[in-house]
Each structure stands twice: as structure tokens, then as C-alpha cells.
């Protein structure tokens, strides 16, 4: 596992435990700008915890996280957002009493520090939600709320985007469109860490993947190699759907 010197994100020996339970047990990897890294594994393997720690929701118990060579472990979420990190949520969390547009506006107003302002409507158009701009966020269906979540994350101008199980509940054409958008974001230089269950989505999207189990990495490399790895196959025999 070579340490990318041009890595925008480097995670080193990350540990997170809850009571006696080690959700993350010494995770290390790195990610370069414009690269798409997939994070897969059975339920409870620590994928979402990994995102939660990197995005500031939890404080790591041990290990370090470097963003642009600066240590960021333990910083509050808003500081990470200002530095250029953002994420989507597995179950979207829009602000219920704000409109769709206001949800994006507030992220632009408070989250965008490093470059000029961007138009809320333009962002909404990017995720095909422009027509809903004045409706309360709660009136969107779940797929639309996921898109709003993505727009909110993009509104803060991130250079690293952590995607938490975006694919669930989307139909194939929506999946294609989203995968296309995410690849576009990667081409524009944003690093993507994509946590996913749906292998087909991962296949379309990622350059390499990391397989996790019980808080540890058990494989890193191409998806094609992963499916041939006996340990990986064994770990997944609890039943994830390979699309």
C-alpha cells in the first residue's frame, strides 16, 4: 500500500470504538484528487462509521486523518466543510421547514469559503430539482431528497465528497444519471469516497475499491480482482446483491 504523496486524503490507522465495540480497527488508505474510491463491505463492517469520522461526526479514538497534508482528526464538522470536505447521508436529512431552494441557499451562505458564490438555482438544476425550488423539502420523495442532499453537499464547494449509500432506492435510469454526474465531478478534480452496497454502481463508478469487514480492511484493488479473492467472497456470503 504505497502512500500517495499527491493524496488529498490520507487516513492512517484509524480507530473508533463504541463502548466495547471496535467499529473501526486500524483503517489506512489514501485518495488522490479526481480519484473515485469505493468502500464496500457487509453491514456493520464500519463503512459508514469511516465516513462519520472523516466528516467530523465522531472523534477518532486513535489514528490520524490528513486532508491536504493537514491533520483534521477531531475537528468540528463546520471546520471540515470550510476546508473543503462534505458528505451525503444514508438517510437524507434535509431541513424540513425550509424550502428546497433554502436548503441549498443556507449551505452556500455558511459553507462556501474558498471560492466565489454559486447560484442556488444552478445547483438545483444540476440535480434536476429546479422545478421544486419553492416547495418544502419534506414534499420530495426519497430519491429526490437524496438529490437535494447531494446538492447541499455540493453547495459548499467540496474538494472531497463522501457518498454514503446513494444508490439504494434509485431506479436504473436514475442510477445511470447519478453515476454520470459523479464521474463528471471526479473529472473536475473532486475526490470521491463512495460507500455502497450495489456492486453494479460501484463497478460503473470507481477506479479501485477497499473491502472492509469488522472494522478492518481485507482487500484493496480493482473490483474485478476483488470478486476473485476468496476471503472477500466468503465475507460477502452473508448476501449482498452483486448487480
Amino acid at each position: 500500500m504505497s502512500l500517495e504523496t499527491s493524496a488529498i486524503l490520507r487516513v492512517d490507522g484509524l480507530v473508533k470504538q463504541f463502548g466495547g465495540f471496535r467499529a473501526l480497527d486500524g483503517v489506512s488508505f489514501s485518495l488522490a484528487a479526481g480519484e473515485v474510491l469505493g468502500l464496500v463491505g457487509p453491514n456493520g463492517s464500519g463503512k459508514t462509521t469511516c465516513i462519520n469520522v472523516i466528516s467530523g461526526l465522531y472523534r477518532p479514538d486513535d489514528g490520524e486523518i490528513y486532508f491536504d497534508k493537514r491533520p483534521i482528526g477531531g475537528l468540528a464538522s463546520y471546520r471540515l466543510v470550510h476546508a473543503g470536505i462534505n458528505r451525503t447521508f444514508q438517510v437524507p436529512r434535509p431541513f424540513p421547514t425550509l424550502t428546497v431552494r433554502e436548503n441549498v441557499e443556507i449551505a452556500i451562505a455558511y459553507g462556501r469559503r474558498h471560492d466565489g458564490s454559486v447560484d442556488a438555482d444552478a445547483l438545483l438544476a444540476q440535480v434536476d430539482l429546479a422545478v421544486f425550488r419553492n416547495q418544502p423539502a419534506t414534499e420530495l420523495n426519497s430519491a429526490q431528497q437524496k438529490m437535494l442532499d447531494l446538492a447541499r453537499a455540493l453547495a459548499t464547494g467540496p474538494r472531497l465528497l463522501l457518498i454514503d449509500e446513494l444508490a439504494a432506492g434509485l431506479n436504473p435510469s436514475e442510477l445511470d444519471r447519478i453515476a454520470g454526474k459523479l464521474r463528471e465531478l471526479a473529472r473536475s478534480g473532486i475526490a470521491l469516497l463512495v460507500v455502497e452496497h450495489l456492486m453494479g454502481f460501484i463497478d460503473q463508478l470507481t477506479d479501485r475499491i477497499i473491502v472492509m469487514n469488522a472494522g478492518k480492511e481485507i482487500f484493496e484493488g480493482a473490483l474485478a480482482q476483488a470478486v476473485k479473492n476468496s476471503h472477500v467472497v466468503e465475507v460477502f456470503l452473508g448476501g449482498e446483491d452483486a448487480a
Partner: protein
Amino acid sequence: MPKMLHHVTLILLPVVAAFAILPTVYSNHLLLFNFMIFIMLAQGVNVIYGFTGYLPFGYVGFFGAGAYGFSLMVIHLQASPLVALAAGAAAAVVLGLTLTPLFRLSGAYFSIANLAAALAVFQVVSNPNLESLTKGPYGISLSGVFDPTFAYGATLAILGATLGLVIYLRNSRFGMALQAIREDSISAGMAGINVVRERIIAWLLSALIAGLAGSVFAWYVSVFYPETVFSGEFTIFAIVFALFGGNGTVIGPILGVVILYGIYNAVGISTPQYFQLIYGALIMLLVLFLPNGLVSLLRQWGINVP
């Protein structure tokens, strides 16, 4: 911002004007004064609960701090009333700053801790050992600055400022951020909002409002005991009025005060237990059936409330 101006003319000016004119036709000025005080306190609760979701069960602590800040300035430094008002407000804000660690606690714990803190302040202020400083349990008497007319005028100004502040919160991005924090503080963090700092600002603003209310109360009545200005009734009424009217809006607390405090003065003063029964039952019914207050009912009927 045009919307703010709209709300100012629609709400702020009529309310302040009403309280400015009513004394000329209605002789019970103390009652009018109390109405203004409760509107301020309910708005103060609104700022912290409606906009950040924390319920200040010890809110009267700021009111009392304001009253004593004002009084001590007058007694020990012979300050003029306006200077003393500023001192009372400052005292409340300082107390608020001291209590900011409480925000590490969630929901009910914060409320109880806040209540305990207010009770502690009361115990300290009314302790006979501190008689030389605070006059202990024997109460304050400010004969020198007694000037109900001037005090009433100051109250009008403070009322206007309070309403102005809430209108600002309702229409500004800062207010939107507070609402976001209230609804989902984690999501708010990921929108780049410094949750801790914004919450503290709202808290201190809320403390400021109560502090000013307490200061001007001390000025207006000029004679009071510690129990008067640290009475849990101020907190309870302010919370009930704000809950009843509905939080997160400008109109809600005003409605709550006008209706409930109005009822209180019409029927409840002589039999406080019956009023207590009514608002106790009212709170329970509200929580079970209308947790967002009157304004949520109005919203259901399609009326968009400022």
C-alpha cells in the same frame, strides 16, 4: 430587506403604538407594563426555544440578574437609570456566558440544569450573608430613581427592540441557520454552520432580552424582594405563552401573551390555583394535540404567519 420592513410596519409599530397610547385611556398602567414585560419574556423564550430547540427552564435567572444588576448599580454607584439598565443587561449576558457549558447537555438535562442554575443564583443573591451587597432576603428599595413614566417609556423602546430582533431573526439567514440547527444540528454542521457559536449567540440574545426586562422591571416597581424577581412564575408564564402562541414566529408569543395573560388578569388573579389548573391542562393538551402552538393551526388553515 423588504419583508422585514413589511413585518415591522405590520407588527412592531402597531404593538408599540398600542402600548404607547393605551395609558392615556386605561388607568391601570402597571397591568399594561406587565403585558409588555411578558411579551418580551415570551419572545426571549421564543428566541432560544423556537430558534434552537433548547427550553430554558431557568429563564427567570436572567430576569433576576437584570433586576439586581440595575439595582446594585443604583445603590452602590449611584448610577443614572439608563446606565444602570445597561449594567443589568450586562449582568444577564455575563450570567448567560457563564452557563454556556450547559449546551453540552441535551434537551431535558439542559432544562433541569438551567433551572438549578437559576435557583442557585437566587440562593446566592438572597443569602443573608451577602446583605451588605445585595440586601439579602430583605429586598431592594430604590427610592431615588423611582420614575414610572420614564421607565414606561424605556420599556416601550426595549419592547420595540425585542420585536425588531425577532423580526430580524425570522427574516435573516442567521435565523434560518438557527432553525436549521434546531431541526438537525448534524446536517447544519455539514452545511458549514458553526452550531456551537450560533447557538451561544441566540442564547446570549435571549439572556439580553430577559436582562433588559428585569432591569426595567426593577426601575418601574423600585421595591421588590428576591423572590419577586426570581419567581418561577416568570419562567412558567413565559414558556406557556410562547408554547401556546407557537414558537419560531414573531406573532406567536404575542398572541400567547395577549390571550393567556389576558385571561389570567380577567379571571385568574383572584384564584391563582384555578389559573394554574387551566394552564397546566392547557400545556398537556398542547403537547398531545397541538405541539406547535396556535400558529401551527393558522398554518394548517393556509394562513402564512410572520
